[in-house]
């Protein structure tokens, strides 16, 4: 690969000639896609090391507010960025979107084929809590679809929600498309029609002003970056 944007660093051997470390904090749902992005980016910029740390969006924001030395923070949902100390922010861009999807166990014991099947009282549904973006979005979807599913639990995050269906404790859960992709064979996806769906946007916030960081963000927003993200189930902004 190679850089698609203009290199702003000094000339050097091979590639762009940039050097330094880019510290990336990313939402846990971005784990696999960012691991790939990091690999590609480092190959293109041999002088640059990308360090990634994954956690829940709230944790990441806490870390930044309390002086963790991060260059970039990529969050799931714009609302997660609200508590962020604005004085630290250099720049905010949207780099990806995600849509809701129903996930069921591979055996699909409850026979869920469409969103309407979730209305059956025999289907045990697990959602995210309505304080987190995926929970809020799921509620909005059900309101639009005018159904009241049998919700047995609301989970604190997507990971916990997905775990319920992986272990077949829930008959169906509502998570993001990218999560269904990431779970591979462990779950099966059931799409939610676009008119009922809600789109979650992923902001990337630049915290450090150095060239390597700017270059990384630019790469994230480039076609190549977008292709990588798409491969992991994320949509374009």
């Amino acid at each position: 690969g190679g850089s698609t944007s203009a290199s702003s660093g000094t000339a050097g051997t091979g590639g762009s000639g940039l050097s330094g470390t880019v510290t990336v904090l990313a939402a846990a749902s971005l784990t696999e896609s960012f691991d790939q992005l990091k690999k590609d980016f480092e190959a293109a910029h041999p002088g640059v090391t990308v360090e990634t740390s994954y956690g829940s969006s709230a944790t990441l924001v806490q870390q930044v507010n309390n002086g963790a030395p991060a260059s970039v923070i990529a969050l799931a949902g714009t609302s997660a960025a609200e508590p962020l100390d604005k004085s630290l922010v250099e720049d905010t861009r949207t780099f990806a979107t995600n849509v809701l999807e129903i996930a069921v166990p591979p055996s699909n014991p409850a026979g869920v084929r469409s969103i309407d099947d979730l209305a059956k009282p025999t289907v045990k549904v697990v959602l995210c809590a309505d304080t987190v973006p995926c929970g809020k979005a799921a509620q909005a979807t059900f309101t639009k679809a005018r159904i009241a599913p049998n919700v047995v639990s609301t989970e604190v995050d997507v990971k916990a929600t997905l775990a319920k269906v992986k272990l077949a404790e829930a008959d169906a859960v509502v998570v993001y498309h990218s999560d269904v992709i990431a779970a591979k064979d462990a779950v099966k996806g059931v799409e939610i029609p676009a008119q009922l769906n809600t789109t979650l946007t992923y902001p990337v916030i630049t915290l450090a002003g150095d060239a390597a960081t700017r270059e990384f963000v630019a790469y994230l927003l480039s076609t190549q970056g977008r292709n990588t993200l798409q491969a992991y189930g994320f949509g374009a902004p």
Partner: protein
Amino acid sequence: MVSARRDARVAPPMRYAARWRSRVVLGVPAAVALLLLVVPLVALLVQADWSRIPSDLATPTVLPALRLSLTTTSITAALCLLLGTPLAWFLARSDHPATSWARALLTVPLVLPPVVGGVALLLTWGRNGLLGQYLTPFGIQIPFTTVAVVLAETFVAMPYYVLAVEGAMRGLDPRLESVARTLGASDLRYLCTVGIPLVLPGIAGGLALAWARALGEFGATITFAGNFQGRTQTLPLLVYVELERDPQVAISISIMLLAVSVLLLGVLRGRWLR
């Protein structure tokens, strides 16, 4: 390093310098240890927005979570007492090699990352779990219920209780038991009338440890019991959820959690853990 070689004469008693050196060498590490543990708590208190705490705690989700936390941790404590005490006693009185392995097994829930503990509980009590599969036909389901919260808390807290009480029971004079037995007491009677009354401080200490651990339990609960308000959403789960929305509320709730526990443990102070 005193290099003395004073023939047969013995040196005089200690001088002040040596006493001070001893105090410093011991006092400084102890102070550092205490600071490492206490300063973060102070930081939490300093950072809190005290004027907001009353309104934060008035959030409608707080009361159900508090009630649930207190209920489930009380039940967990009771289970520790009822089930853990006999186990501790069997471990304490046995010299069998198997005992030490049983004791090593007991520490496993401490090592297990709590989330994995939750997965293990799902694999046990879940719909297709090792035991859960036999319950499903009877329409009994454990995950997502308050029972699951109690099971999760018991799983992580019981080892602390058992290890603490076992230690206390090993401290009992075994001759007291011999005497009670010659008087005709069965194991059960001895335990109820003499063994337990005499290790009450140890039991209180173990209960405090177990109760504290259960009160703070998060990972296993969220995985195994889910996060259903009023049914499985305990205080730590609420804190986590609120951290996502408004960290200040989360800190307010945590401070309440601390206050509750220090108060409850403070009431037992001096008695618990001897």
